């Protein structure tokens, strides 16, 4: 579990992270999104006890990041933005070095690196120096390093950025496995599709503040409005569209289609279908117009830019 309260980091006059409060439960994936320099990496570094907060507090896996840094780091697996592998080492040597640092028991120390290398499809590259690895291979090895000690908490910075689609899918599956194994996971990414696919909850960070947080549906509802539905009928609407205004918020319509918003699709959609069928209208399709995280994210950032000067930080994120 990760808990932070009013977590703040200043570098001289520069406020890198501004009063971030959040809770991430075990078995949850929390995605932090934000432009470059927003404070994502600094937040991750504070949660890894690499940087000390200027004020506020954070507990990771039950340990205080300031008072118990060694305990925190022993329970956190970090995939850093830059993988920083030792170019002259081989994969097994590299993982063995970190296995020693994490004090893995000898039998596990021998077994675990090989298991992970095989899992990530690196078993064929055991004899290669890391300098010869492709970017994707390096990223997979860095992820293997983060998972080596089976940490309770994972902090993953751009976990699939350099990977081919097949490898990226493998890594996403690995992350889901870890989620099912009740690990607490934070990912920071610019890949909004991936964040939407993986994350249970999403936080958008800008100028060091979390400006919005919640599930995708909550954020979409709040920032781009209720779900947008699109209805197609067989014989034309014949003025029926205006008649539906009393039930839903009509957005636009044509001769054989219409779009409306509804805050409560579970109730409104069946009611509309019943009404149309009662009127003898033949419905071809009724579906939700896809809303992407990109739309939501851009809207969040746009709104925040609008009230930059007097914005208050997002209240505690649960």
């Amino acid at each position: 579990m990760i808990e932070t309260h009013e977590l703040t980091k200043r570098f001289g006059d520069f406020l890198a992270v501004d009063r971030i409060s959040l809770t991430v439960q075990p078995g949850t994936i929390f995605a932090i999104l934000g432009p470059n320099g927003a404070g994502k990496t600094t937040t991750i570094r504070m949660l890894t006890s690499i940087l000390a907060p200027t004020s506020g507090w954070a507990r990771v896996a039950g340990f205080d990041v300031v008072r118990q840094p060694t305990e925190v780091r022993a329970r956190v697996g970090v995939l850093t933005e830059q993988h920083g592998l030792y170019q002259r080492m081989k994969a097994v040597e590299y993982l063995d070095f970190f296995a020693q640092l994490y004090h893995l028991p000898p039998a596990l120390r021998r077994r675990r690196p090989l298991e992970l290398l095989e899992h990530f499809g690196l078993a064929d590259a055991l004899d290669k120096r890391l300098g010869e690895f492709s970017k994707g291979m390096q990223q997979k090895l860095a992820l293997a390093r983060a998972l080596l000690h089976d940490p309770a908490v994972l902090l993953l910075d751009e976990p699939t950025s350099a990977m081919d689609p097949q490898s990226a899918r493998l890594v996403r599956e690995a992350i889901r496995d870890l989620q099912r194994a009740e690990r607490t996971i934070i990912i920071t990414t610019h890949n909004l599709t991936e964040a939407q696919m993986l994350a249970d909850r999403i936080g958008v960070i800008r100028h060091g503040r979390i400006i919005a947080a919640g599930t995708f549906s909550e954020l979409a509802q709040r920032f781009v409005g209720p779900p947008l539905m699109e209805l197609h009928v067989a014989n034309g609407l014949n003025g029926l569209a205006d008649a539906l205004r009393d039930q839903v918020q009509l957005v636009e319509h044509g001769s054989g289609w219409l779009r409306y918003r509804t805050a409560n699709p579970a109730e409104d959609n069946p009611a509309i279908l019943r009404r149309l069928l009662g009127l003898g209208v033949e419905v071809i399709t009724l579906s939700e117009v896809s809303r992407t995280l990109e739309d939501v994210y851009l809207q969040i950032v746009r709104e925040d830019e609008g009230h930059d000067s007097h914005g208050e930080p997002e209240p505690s994120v649960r």
Partner: protein
Amino acid sequence: MKGTIPMASLSHPYADSLARRAAFSRTLSNALIVTRREVRDSFRDWRIMSPIFLLTLVFPLLANAMTDLFITFFEENGAEPLLPALLPLLPMIVGFFPVSISLVIALETFVGEKERLSLEPLLATPLTNTELYLGKSFAAMLPPLLASYIGIAIYVGGLVFGDTQWRPPLVLVVQILVLTTVQALVMVTGAVVISSQTTSTRAANLLASFIIIPMSMLVILESIIMVQPHRRYVLWFLALGLLVTVALLVRMGARLFNREELLGRSLDQLNLRWIGRTFMQQFRGPQLRRTTPGAWYRTSVMPAVRALARPATVTVLCAATAFAGGWLAADRWPLPLDRVAVDDATLVENLQAWFELGRSNPGLILAAIGQNLRALALATMLGVFTFGVLSLIVVMLPFGLLGYILAQVAAAGLDPLPFLAGIAPHGVVEIPAILLAGAAALRLGSIITHPPAEMPAGEAWVRALADTVKIGIALVLPLIALAGMLEVAVTPRIVELVLAR
């Protein structure tokens, strides 16, 4: 690629093993994990191994050949007596050259890793700052030291088992081994300090001149001492001094080598605006811009003086030690005071002339003030570059001299009252000013070795500088000015009165 992600089934991953290990052995064991990796990495780097190989195996053999050549040349020219003085320079160089590579490795292992961005994964492990610091320092030191010892062994072996006429005395070999070791320690601990303050190998190499230049001067000094066999005992003191330097650098490095400093520092840019603002903030103190002198003394100057408690204690103790040392030295190097026959009347006449000169020439007061201020400014500047050591020495000198003179007076059976009268009237003001300035200079020079927690070393230094300037302006300058006036206008009169009793 297969199945689900393998889990390690560790219910409490490290708590048990961490708890089982004693703190010290754990620290050492963790440090050695880092050391082993780094050393293995160094041994795989041909850029490091090539010079080590050459300096370890080839250079000692060349030095052996040089020794033969020197002996033949000196013998042919009838200068054999010079051989015992000059030949030890060769094993000294044989030992020093490989050790000099430790500087390169230290810069590479610290800054190089930072530059290649491989440091952060290491910082995210449970290693403590001390373990990382020790592990990397050992790694930087061990290969060059090993190379140096092997080089000396090959050189000495070549002499012992070859047909060269010269056999270096055992004590000389031990002395060279000790010097080589402490030199490596100084270079590595210095490189750690430099590494922690830079983000690129280029910047670190530029800053390395702060190590290379003093080390070169040191080697020249060692050579000068080495060629004087009867003074070679001084080299032991030199080694001791280097060990003290190592202790200071280790303290400084351990403080600076922390995650916050290593990752928080992303630019090597000199931020003059920030420096100016921090300086002025510390100089003004917590008061708002408009403040009265009284409030400034109370809220800004006095806290700065209170911060001098420890350096002031050290300064006073050192001054007392210097006084005692001066007193004891008087026995060994006595002045022929008993042969100087100056009667009191002549002294009174001289003092009257001095007094009249001071009264008619106020510039003398300025000269006295200027002299003291110059000495204190010099002490402060020297302290900045020597962790405060030279500022202490400069402050100790007058006290040593005072002890020496008073001991001479006592030993010659002269009346000490006129001498005390010549010191006390202005000394009452001047001595506290000197001690205060000395303590401030010591703090300024040494604060970088132990900056306050949660404060970067640079900021701590700028604030200490502001405190030093503040104390200088608010207290030392007025005291020195007052002492100057007393020294010129009052002290001669008091002495005159004492002599005229």
